């Protein structure tokens, strides 16, 4: 019974201009299993999913679902066939309410008219199942990315499907949410549903999945039972080479303790914005990686936005290199040598139709102004450098960035800021959606930046990442500073305790 595949893909091929994203891939998911789909950035995971759900038309191959041939021409077809999907980028409607986003397209009706009360009730139930407490009447766009992600998951779960597809659902979630999600996934597995799960977190793979399919460069590497594939072997399959230690662990833990205390580069005193963050003091120094930890909605992103001049503070002051500064806009901050890599790459990061090159050099060019144009040669050099260093997978620098896989887009954005050679860089979830190999490289990069004397403010929902990289961590709780942990005392347990105290 278990072995009869629910979903079967045979020889699926998908070509884009200049790229073969999928090359004769076979893929099978059985009912009642959680199947992890793994691979590096740009390996073809999202493309596979989009072929499956009718977003793209495959150039070759056959699909069957529950024994019947599947020819989805649109996501609607796939949905009707019993496939429910959460895509990599949040694909909901920001201007509509949370409740409506969950119900859209299948709203309950009474006498042909939409039953709004039922929609709200239903949404509350759907969110409660994920243990999320959020106002269902709120506009979706006003929520943080993480919450939006949870809403998208709630919407997908709301559909009585045979197959649930989750493309990097946990990239922006913190531990508590991830745990809730896993509970639900296990329950669905028990109910006989097939679940496809894409992630770059190997811990999560081993925590929930039964089986693993690995893709590399659009080709199938193999299908394995999770229990029979050790971590190191898995990483080897993904990267296509033998690895001694798991790539994610190679970054050397920073030896922050011994650092001599340098003069503060940036100091914020009593920075406040009503509804966003209570008065907060923080000091960022050269050669330090300061972590900003906290639960979802604890105010980390809000703090970063204040520091970077995106939102105006109600009170408080910022001193940069000892002088008082006012950031009226991100431009002011960039001019002084700050950089801010936003967590929301789709709406705040990429310029989708512009090329990788233009996206990459953009911040530097904006900093220099319209007249001091970077020559084509300089641009090319920058692009070549970062494409190589960050291993950005793109046919060439003139491809529109929207054609890149999510993780590669993220790398371009990182490169955009590194190219400005900032003195202080704020990284809000910089490794979201980035594969383990690249993640290790980015962590090495952070260490390098620190060694070069930059100040780094690192925001991450991944506690391990904070612990690995930071020399000092500020913990936020419910929009106020809850405390500071020096490097010497930095352990995941300690952080978690501080982050959660109020909940306990």
């Amino acid at each position, binding site marked *: 019974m278990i072995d009869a595949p629910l979903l079967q893909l045979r020889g699926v091929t998908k070509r884009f201009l200049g790229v073969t994203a999928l090359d004769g891939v076979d893929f099978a998911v059985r009912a009642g299993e959680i199947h992890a789909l793994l691979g590096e950035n740009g390996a073809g995971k999202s493309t596979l999913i989009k072929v499956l759900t009718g977003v793209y038309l495959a150039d070759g191959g056959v699909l069957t679902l529950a024994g019947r041939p599947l020819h989805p021409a649109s996501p609607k077809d796939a*949905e009707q066939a019993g496939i429910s999907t959460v895509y990599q980028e949040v694909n909901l409607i920001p201007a509509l309410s949370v409740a409506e986003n969950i119900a859209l397209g299948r709203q309950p009706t009474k006498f042909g008219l939409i039953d709004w009360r039922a929609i709200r009730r239903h949404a509350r139930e759907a969110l409660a199942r994920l243990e999320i407490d959020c106002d269902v009447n*709120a506009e979706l766009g006003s*929520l943080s990315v993480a919450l939006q992600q949870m809403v998208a998951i709630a919407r997908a779960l709301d559909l009585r499907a045979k197959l649930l597809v989750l493309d990097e659902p946990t990239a922006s979630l913190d531990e508590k949410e991830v745990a809730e999600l896993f509970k639900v996934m296990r329950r669905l597995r028990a109910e006989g549903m097939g679940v496809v799960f894409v992630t770059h977190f190997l811990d999560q793979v081993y925590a929930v999945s039964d089986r693993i399919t690995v893709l590399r460069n659009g080709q199938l590497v193999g299908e394995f039972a999770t229990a029979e594939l050790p971590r190191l072997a898995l990483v080897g399959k993904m990267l296509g080479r033998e690895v001694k230690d798991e790539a994610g662990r190679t970054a050397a833990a920073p030896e922050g303790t011994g650092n001599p205390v340098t003069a503060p580069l940036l100091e914020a005193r009593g920075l406040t914005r009503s509804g966003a963050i209570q008065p907060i003091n923080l000091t960022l120094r050269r050669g330090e990686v300061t972590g900003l930890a906290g639960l979802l909605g604890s105010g980390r992103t809000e703090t970063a936005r204040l520091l970077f001049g995106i939102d105006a503070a109600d009170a408080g002051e910022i001193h940069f290199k000892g002088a008082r500064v006012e950031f009226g806009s991100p431009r002011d901050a960039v001019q002084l040598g700050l950089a801010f890599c936003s967590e929301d790459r789709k709406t705040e990061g990429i310029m989708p139709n512009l090329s990788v090159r233009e996206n990459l050099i953009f911040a530097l060019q904006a900093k220099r102004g319209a007249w001091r144009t970077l020559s084509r040669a300089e641009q090319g050099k920058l692009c070549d450098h970062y494409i190589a260093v960050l291993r950005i997978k793109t046919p060439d620098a003139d491809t529109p960035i929207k054609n890149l896989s999510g993780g590669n887009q993220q790398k371009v954005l990182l490169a955009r800021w590194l190219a400005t050679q900032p003195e202080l860089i704020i990284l809000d979830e910089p490794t979201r959606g980035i594969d383990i190999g690249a993640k290790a490289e980015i962590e090495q990069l952070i260490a390098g930046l620190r060694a070069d004397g930059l100040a780094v403010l690192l925001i991450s929902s991944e506690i391990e990442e904070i612990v690995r990289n930071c020399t000092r961590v500020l913990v936020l709780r419910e929009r106020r500073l809850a405390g500071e942990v020096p490097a010497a005392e930095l352990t995941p347990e300690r952080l978690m305790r501080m982050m959660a105290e109020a909940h306990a």
Partner: protein
Amino acid sequence: MKPGARRGGRNLSLVVTAVIAVTLFGLASFFYEGFFSPRVAVNLLGDNAFLGIAAVGMTLVIFAGGIDLSVGAVVGFTSIFTATLVSGHGVHPALAWTLALILGAALGAGMGALIQVFRLPAFLITLAGMFLARGAGFWLNTESVAIAHPWYEALANFDLALGPVHLSATALLLLAVVVIGWGIGHHLRFGRTLLALGGSEQSALLMGLPVGPTKIAVYALNGACAALAGIVATLYTGSGNPSMGGGLELDAIAIVVMGGTLLAGGRGHVLGTLLGVFIFGTIQQGILFDGRLSSSWMRIVVGALLLAFILLQRALVRRR
């Protein structure tokens, strides 16, 4: 996209618009003797009936992130088409109206199909639709044609008295269309799909919404609305005129936006459009009551009032 939960934003802007509308009417009543009368208030509906009907259709198209420049020309075409059939060929008005509505919807559907299937810019295609409809109208007749038919007489004399308020057939039709539009926009799946489409077409597609059919349908619906507006124009004037509705599309768009609907799509309210009609009418009525403005000053004052209104609305909604 600023964080910070925005709740009931839509209703707030609706309330603000309503408050401004009433204030504007109050101010005009204060300044101009005789302005504050049921007759003037009802004239606001009756005089703007066909503009309002076209604006309701436009609202739905704008919900979906589209635009339709052809409505004014369709009003003109329908008007002369109906008149030609009824007066020139002795066709019964009921049949003429049906044909006109079908033609309007067909033109809309055609434009929608071009926009959707070939991914052509709505602006260009509906501009072509505008030329097509205008040319077709003039081809039928370059001059206006009077309509003489008992139905028209009866409808022109129709008058629903509710106390001191006398509602004409066209005013009632406008109200009916607003109610139907409101029902479609806010209580049918179709309407919500429109908003989703306007919010993000790609997301709507990934969410499994019927993007293509919905888009074509909304243009067809708007075409029918424009045709209905043209029919109402013949009722209003008792004649058909191929140059009717020149520039009406811009007025309709302005009204939709005044009603608080986002031109980029995805956010708005049909009832806001009714308020927009009310505000638009009040400004015009106020200028008529004043009666001292020369042609040039009239334009300047209309522009200034428009600006003042939009800035006020914005300031109030922002403040909350």
